[in-house]
């Protein structure tokens, strides 16, 4: 016989147990979003290839050809693609999970389950897109006959890192969005802006050394550097303090995100 206590403030113990109990819902909500996403589209899943392909082409032309940025001996499209993969995961996860609670407000006001499920499942949805784009990256690497270095073994670590960053930021924005719809306007701006201040279209080494530490406060700097190091090898020079900062950033984002989400979660149904 299950027993349940409902009382002002007393939910913490039950919360994590419920999260486990509703674990299948992570899958179902992500599955729903994936199913729905390409309904009534002509190109369908092809969009998750076309988007990175076109962005890659534009960034290569703008930064590589017109801007004449150094590529470090790597084909420029490949350099861009390695940066775009984590960036696109991060930015779509941020945008989608930011909206997730508001979009599912009918669920929030009518049925109980840990609200964290909604936000996490949108991050998972973006992650699936990331994996599909990953296949595209492999194809491009074969095309350029570029074998990955031994460092590729560290790739899972950086994938975990970008997942953490996406989750941390997503959870923050989702919870803030419930009360402050201003974030509906802020997020697209962050996405647009972030593409240029993160080293997606260029190498982070073009940033002057004295600003490098400051620049690395953006966790995506360390993460993108890490991706390039794993996939393209030592040719892309790694700035190690940047990686350390990224790791700290992600830990802080995740911990504070969960804290803020939990703090405000109880009032979601009243406020949304």
């Amino acid at each position, binding site marked *: 016989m299950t027993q349940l206590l409902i009382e002002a403030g007393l939910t913490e113990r039950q919360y994590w147990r419920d999260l486990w109990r509703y674990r299948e819902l992570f899958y179902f909500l992500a599955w729903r979003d994936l199913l729905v996403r390409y309904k009534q589209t002509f190109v369908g899943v092809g969009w998750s290839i076309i988007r990175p392909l076109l962005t890659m082409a534009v960034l290569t032309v703008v930064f590589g050809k017109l801007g004449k940025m150094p590529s470090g001996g790597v084909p420029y499209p490949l350099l861009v693609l390695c940066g775009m993969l984590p960036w696109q995961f991060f930015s779509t996860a941020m945008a989608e999970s930011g909206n997730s609670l508001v979009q599912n407000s009918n669920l929030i006001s009518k049925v*109980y389950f840990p609200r964290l499920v909604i936000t996490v499942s949108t991050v998972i949805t973006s992650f699936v897109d990331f994996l599909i784009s990953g296949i595209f990256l492999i194809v491009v690497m074969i095309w350029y006959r570029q074998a990955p270095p031994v460092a590729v073994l560290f790739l899972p670590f950086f994938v975990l890192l970008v997942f953490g960053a996406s989750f941390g930021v997503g959870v923050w924005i989702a919870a803030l969005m419930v009360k402050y719809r201003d974030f509906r306007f802020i997020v697209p701006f962050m996405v647009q802006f972030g593409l240029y201040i993160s080293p997606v279209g260029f190498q982070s080494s073009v940033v002057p050394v004295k600003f490098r530490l400051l620049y690395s406060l953006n966790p995506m700097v360390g993460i993108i550097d890490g991706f390039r190091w794993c996939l393209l090898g030592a040719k892309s020079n790694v700035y190690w303090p940047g990686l350390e900062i990224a790791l700290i950033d992600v830990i802080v984002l995740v911990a504070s995100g969960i804290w803020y989400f939990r703090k405000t979660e109880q009032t979601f149904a009243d406020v949304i």
Partner: protein
Amino acid sequence: MSDTKGTSRNPTMTNTAITIENLGKRYILGHQRAKDDGLRHAIEDAMRAPLAWLRSRRQKKLQEVDFWALKDVSLQIKRGEVVGIIGRNGAGKSTLLKILSRITVPTEGRIRIDGRVASLLEVGTGFHQELTGRENIFLNGAILGMTRAEIIRKFDEIVEFSEIEEFLDTPVKRYSSGMYVRLAFAVAAHLEPEILIVDEVLAVGDAAFQKKCLGKMGSFAHSGKTVLFVSHNMEAIRSLCQRVVWLKDGRLHKDGTVDEILETYFNSVSTELSFSCVNPDYGLVVQKVVLKNDRGEESSQFRPGEDLIVEINYEAQKRLEQPYVILGVQSVNGSCFTANMLLDGHRPEALTGTGKLACRFKSLPLFPQSYSVKMSIRTKNGNDMIIKYQEVAYFNVVGDLAEYGYHGEFLTRASQSTPVVVPYEWCLPDGTIAPVSLADPRDSTVDTREVASLT
């Protein structure tokens, strides 16, 4: 803390399913909140004058207008009891269910629930328009707390109950509203909880399906499970519940057996209406407006084709010469009809002392919906309002349209239709004449073909 440990040690020993102690839920109202909510204001205020901002935040606490949606509610519900929760809109019924379903947290008090809870506050929560019926069964099941294995096991049963086999792979956005509701209820009906919490879900769907739902809930109740049921449909409450809890202004007003509570509830609903039907200038008081049926009984439920008698009980402290009385009946889907002395000219010579004035609307040609009666009274010259036009009584029309010969596939939409049905007949190209009327259920059981051959 020690208390919670004590109770969890022997949970099976207890005979109560739900214990509610001093439950309260406060919402904060007032314009303070609107200002508080904009991010711009929050930042702007803080930037401009940090000290003033801090001070004002502290002061705001005092200025806030509290609204207690629920206050001091204590209840014990035993295992296997079927309890109906009634009350006017805003009495706190939905808030209570939301707290019990853990959608929102109480401000004070506590609840202990023994057993797996399933709550249906809405039919089809989480259904996605773009997904097929099959996909939605899985999605909705998971949202309601079923595991995938459970859904797979019950899948066939759910499909059978919903009667939508052939549309399983059609997106639900192409479903008729009846099919949608049937599928949604079918999923929910197979939850197998020990405690079921239901909010007014039966207000949707056609009469036949409502019966099926009530039947399912009835069998659920008979199998010894605990049910909490909020409804405005008193017939459903009467047929399902043994015990009724009556909430009023967020407090527990009365708690007792169905018969004793419902009787006092009906009486209060007709007398309790808070309309200002007093005009001291003319010395007129409308004490109450009562609705009666064919048999002269007070009622708030009518069948299509029944007569509706609107009885106005007045007290004229001064003699009131030749007033005009105007009555109107309307539903949310539009105005229906009116009885207007300004037009028909049948006005009383004078109102003196206490008395009654009634109007009989014959053979209500109305679909099953909720209606209100509006009334106004004007002076002898017809221009001045003695009592302004306002809602004075409410009633529901209930009934199974199938008994009146209705058998359309989209019959459920009758609840959103223009409410009035003047008797009519279709003359079809093949010579068939199909009469339709809400006048009397027996009339329309006549086979249409037979009528055609007679003509």
